[in-house]
């Protein structure tokens, strides 16, 4: 009788525990399926960028990501991949310790730690498995197939990916992650190479020859895309080329003394006025929320409408800016003045244009052109300042006809290990921190404890 009662009680307890675990398990399952992340870091560094989300929305068939990690680093990749999968359930992933599964790695073309093999529709791409933009770039490559050719013109003192602050190394890296294959081309050698998605003219110091501009015009007429990044410098032929499309390239220097940005020389123009609803400065889904800083800008504006060209100014400086007629005076740091023919007020600095007529019967796409009156903003030194990166990459995406890529990218908070952090403590401050955290605070608690113990003993 006693035994049966004990058996009944134990059975009842087992059932209760089982039901409890089942109920809690189901609740957790629901929580896993409906997870929502509240990213409290500045710049939302732990969330996927809107651009990556948009890109993942393009994955319509099963896509598999296999990451090979070094032991102890699994979690950093698992977290990122889980975020990708949360956006699109067609993305499946597996993680392998490369030391334990070297053969599997080799079979997928991976022989190094931290690489991801992305498989989609029979294509396979191997890329770095983190950070986010590298993996997203890999997925883009897998979606598209072969990379798109991107031509940087040479021969006029243009900037390249040299690693110096004024170079375009970071921009080129970002473009490679977005499946572009950059190459240098001199237009003196012939026309723009076939299958070129975009031609970038990055800060020429010397003017182009008419022959080279003819090549550019022919390329544009054939439906190509050109991005002109033009620092203040005498470029009469380029100005004439733009003039033929109704675009005026000012031979001036835009400064904004009132909106001086910390870390710049006071000659920078701040761009906060963007034309609404256009795909470069104000993509419908993800408008650029911060302004753009053009460290050494010239004006670019629409002068007149030319038949067959639809041009519009899409970004202007703040009203406190001046367009100084003599760039040399601006560089010397002289104050702008109307007496010196300088023009006060908001100035147009970015123009976009489409060439050709829709439905002209040729079946060619329209040529696209964006002219920015500055090249510095996209250089390594300024690319990650405010909205500069988004403006540069959006312009390239639109010009190249990649409308899916226009939008806000991840905020590039530098995460590399640097010799010094921005927090500097003097020896005295460090001693104060040590004393407060290691001696004073624990000492106070210990003292309080001794008082309490003493009181108890005193009271018996």
């Amino acid at each position: 009788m006693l035994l049966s009662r004990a058996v009944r009680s134990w059975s009842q307890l087992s059932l209760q525990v089982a039901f409890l675990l089942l109920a809690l398990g189901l609740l957790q399952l629901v929580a896993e399926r409906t997870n929502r992340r509240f990213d409290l870091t500045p710049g939302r560094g732990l969330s996927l960028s809107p651009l990556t989300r948009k890109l993942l929305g393009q994955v319509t068939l099963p896509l598999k990501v296999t990451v090979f990690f070094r032991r102890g680093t699994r979690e950093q990749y698992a977290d990122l991949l889980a975020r990708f999968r949360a956006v699109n359930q067609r993305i499946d992933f597996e993680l392998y310790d490369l030391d334990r599964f070297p053969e599997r790695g080799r079979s997928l073309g991976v022989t190094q730690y931290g690489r991801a093999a992305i498989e989609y529709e029979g294509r396979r791409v191997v890329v770095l498995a983190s950070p986010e933009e590298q993996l997203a770039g890999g997925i883009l490559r897998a979606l598209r197939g072969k990379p798109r050719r991107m031509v940087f013109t040479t021969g006029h003192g243009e900037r390249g990916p040299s690693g110096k602050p004024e170079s375009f190394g970071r921009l080129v890296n970002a473009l490679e992650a977005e499946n572009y294959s950059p190459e240098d081309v001199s237009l003196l050698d012939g026309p723009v190479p076939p299958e070129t998605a975009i031609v970038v003219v990055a800060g020429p110091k010397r003017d182009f020859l008419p022959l080279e501009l003819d090549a550019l015009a022919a390329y544009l007429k054939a439906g190509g895309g050109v991005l002109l990044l033009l620092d203040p410098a005498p470029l009469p032929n380029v100005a004439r080329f733009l003039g033929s499309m109704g675009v005026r390239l000012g031979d001036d220097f835009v400064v904004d003394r009132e909106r001086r940005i910390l870390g710049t020389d006071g000659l920078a123009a701040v761009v906060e006025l963007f034309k609404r609803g256009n795909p470069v400065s104000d993509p419908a889904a993800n408008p650029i929320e911060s302004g753009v800083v053009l460290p050494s800008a010239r004006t670019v504006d629409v002068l007149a409408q030319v038949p067959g060209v639809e041009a519009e100014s899409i970004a202007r400086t703040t009203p406190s800016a001046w367009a100084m007629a003599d760039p040399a005076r601006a560089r010397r740091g002289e104050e702008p003045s109307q007496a010196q023919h300088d023009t006060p007020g908001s100035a147009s600095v970015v123009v976009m244009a489409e060439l050709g007529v829709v439905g002209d019967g040729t079946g060619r796409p329209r040529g696209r052109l964006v002219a920015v009156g500055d090249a510095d903003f996209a250089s390594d030194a300024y690319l990650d300042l405010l909205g500069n990166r988004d403006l540069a990459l959006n312009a390239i995406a639109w010009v190249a006809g990649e409308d899916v890529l226009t939008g806000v990218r991840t905020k590039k908070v530098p995460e590399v290990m640097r010799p010094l952090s921005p927090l500097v403590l003097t020896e005295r401050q460090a001693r104060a921190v040590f004393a407060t955290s290691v001696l004073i605070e624990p000492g106070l608690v210990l003292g309080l404890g001794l008082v309490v113990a003493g009181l108890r003993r005193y009271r018996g």
Partner: protein
Amino acid sequence: MTVLAIARKELALYFGSFLFYALATVFLLLAGYFFYTNLGFFVLMGGMSLPRGLWQYQLLDVQRLLLVLTPLFTMRLFAEERKLGTLELLWTYPVRDAEIILGKFLACLAVVTVMVGATVVYPVMVAAFYPVAAGPLLAGYVGLWLLVAAFIACGLFLSALTDSQLVAGAATYGLLLFFWVITWNEAAVNEVTLHLLVPFSLFDRFYPFALGAIDTRDVTYLVLFTVAFLTFTFFALDSRRWRGLR
């Protein structure tokens, strides 16, 4: 109200004994030392991001300290009372088991919260030299608090199973350690097993909090973990009745 009365009694016991101050001193001494060294690391080579370069390491260090110290707070909750015979006395009052459990749980949670709350002085000090974003810290402390609640619930349950404080403390260490290292040895288990184990790791659940994000699934897991062990404690106390052990 009975829950609050029991919690008040427990709080008086904690704050009236030297043990709490001794443990809090050890905790703050070690947490302070970790903070100083983590800050030194950040100044020298921590990069640009405070959440990733400093708070992450500090919160993970505090989490390890809590793993060591929390069982010392929980081991006495039932085991000591039973050994001294005061639990039987408590049961003679018109209070329910659930109220006793909740009262003790809340008191212990309040005590450890006060102790962890004292570490807020570190970001305040950093804020004197450098702008500190509150968001990542808020996420980190919410995570720590939920983790502490889970630790305490686990310790409470094991304390209810035995008369020996030592056994209760050691068992709590063992169980919490298990939930820590469950995903450590990636080489010992295959990928499928690891995939199944990861959701149960308390510390993997805490990691996003330490980085400055709050995932609702992690909050749910830590809350359900706490609820599960509090319910187990209730079952353990209840079973003693029909087992004739009271």
